[in-house]
């Protein structure tokens, strides 16, 4: 009998973790350490000096708190939008699509095969001021006569929503897919209405997926820059844009590093609050 793993239970997790964590340790943690070192430097490119420059952090908060808040708001709205849009779709795929489910799963992810730039060019075409969508909205008086969809907050948030949709959809699918349909049958047999069965059986069982999807959408979206860059104006700039320009255009590497850590820190704080709310076993099991 496989007693090996029983006897050496304490060794197993480390063995499982080893290759992946090793990869992360070498290729992420080490660069992160260097980034930390950089965040405490000062001076002008390329002559930076290590001076325990904690003011990089305080300056970052002072100068860019607007962009930080904005990033979290945009990411938050997009995450909620993704959740509301994706859940019913994925529910349908898991329970009603039958042999077609893999096709529809692929359809969710397929837009990514087309390169961000190419699909954004397509969106810019579809949502152009003179295009069919905006014209329709103007006719319906949802938009003013000079109204537009592009170069607005709506465009940026919609862009984030569209581009992070699979990150919400697939994890939810993963936890819906495993639900034994007999559980739902049982609920029905016990006179539960479809709504009640959903709320009492399906939804709770899909909670891990919802949590996972929320994290996979919100966390990268908060640091996103490309949607704001291509679809927004200076009024929509996110912290990702700031870090981008500090790094590429200002050549202010210490500030860029400090801002990155501030972003990571803010996300971790949000994560801990979230874990509190949903219960930490939802995050780790």
């Amino acid at each position, binding site marked *: 009998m496989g007693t090996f793993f029983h006897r050496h239970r304490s060794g197993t*997790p480390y063995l499982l973790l080893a290759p992946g*964590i090793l990869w992360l340790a070498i290729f992420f943690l080490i660069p992160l350490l260097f980034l930390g070192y950089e965040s405490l430097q000062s001076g002008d490119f390329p002559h930076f000096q290590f001076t325990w420059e904690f003011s990089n952090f305080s300056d970052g908060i002072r100068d860019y708190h607007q962009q930080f808040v904005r990033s979290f708001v945009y990411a938050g709205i997009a995450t909620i939008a993704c959740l509301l849009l994706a859940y*019913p779709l994925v529910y349908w795929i898991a329970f009603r699509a039958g042999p077609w489910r893999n096709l529809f799963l692929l359809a969710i992810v397929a837009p990514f095969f087309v390169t961000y730039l190419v699909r954004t060019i397509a969106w810019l075409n579809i949502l152009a001021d003179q295009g069919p969508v905006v014209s329709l909205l103007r006719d319906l008086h949802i938009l003013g006569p000079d109204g537009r969809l592009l170069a607005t907050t709506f465009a940026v948030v919609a862009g984030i929503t569209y581009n992070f949709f*699979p990150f919400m959809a697939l994890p939810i699918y993963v936890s819906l897919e495993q639900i034994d349909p007999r559980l739902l049958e049982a609920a029905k047999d016990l006179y539960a209405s479809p709504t009640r069965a959903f709320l009492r059986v399906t939804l709770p069982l899909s909670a891990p997926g919802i949590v996972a999807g929320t994290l996979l959408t919100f966390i990268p979206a908060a640091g996103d820059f490309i949607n704001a860059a291509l679809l927004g104006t200076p009024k929509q700039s996110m912290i990702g844009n700031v870090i981008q320009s500090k790094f590429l255009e200002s050549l202010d590497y210490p500030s860029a590093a400090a801002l990155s850590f501030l972003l990571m820190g803010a996300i971790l704080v949000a994560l801990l609050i979230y874990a509190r709310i949903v219960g930490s076993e939802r995050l780790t099991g």
Partner: protein
Amino acid sequence: MTSVAAPTPRARPSIAARSWAFVKRHALTAYALLVIAYLMLPIAVVILFSFNAPSGRFNYVWEGFTLDNWVNWNDVLGIQAAVIRSLEIGFLATIVATVLGTLIAMAIVRHRFVGRGATSLLIFLPMATPEIVLGASLLTLFLNATAVFQLGFVTIFIAHVLFIVSFIVVTVKARLIGFDRHLEEAAMDLGANEITTFRKVTLPLLAPAMLAAALLGFALSIDDFVITYFNGGSVTQTFPVFVWGIARVSVPPQVNVVASAIFLVAIALALGNVLWQYRSAKRTQGAT
């Protein structure tokens, strides 16, 4: 004494009631198809514009239909190599990341060990790091270790596995949390050891989740520009890097053609899978 009432003949439901029932039954399907349509909308435009015949070097305005771009899809220098590179890295990085990620997920969910919480948080960090920072700091690492790492295919591969693995872990975890261990316990009670149980019981049950995670990882890899650009050393161009590079001067329809082709091939493979599912379902039906 209670008597069983004779069932009253039910009046035929009115058309309104029947229509409402119809709507309720199919509302979800309609919604699902609408959302899919929304997701596919830009793709439709991309495919449409692959048949465009622009007079200039950009493909922004519809000017006329032509099959030329599809016939001469390889006309744009470098596009073929870039696509192949993207697919190679995509498959390789996804497979490795899925393996590593699944192992990590299993460790975190199924075992209690020192550092479990920290590991969990560590997994989230790469996702929380802006791409440019991730790409640039990885580049710094590679440049400081040029004895071991030369910029090119391998460094892109390493970078891709790095940023994909977190997504795999979180996705597979969603399946593992609440995983019914009874089946595995039953298998072991019947004499299977841990490895056999894993192979024959756990893995097949985990497979759909791993597949979904891999799909996500592949999408991430094939669409990445920033990290790839920084760590490719320009010897190796992937499709997004190629497109971004060329976009300054030209967005030829061939880009649409290649993008559409990748999309259509993927759909075709998925359709094949649908057919296969139908067949095997039929076979099991017929066997009973």
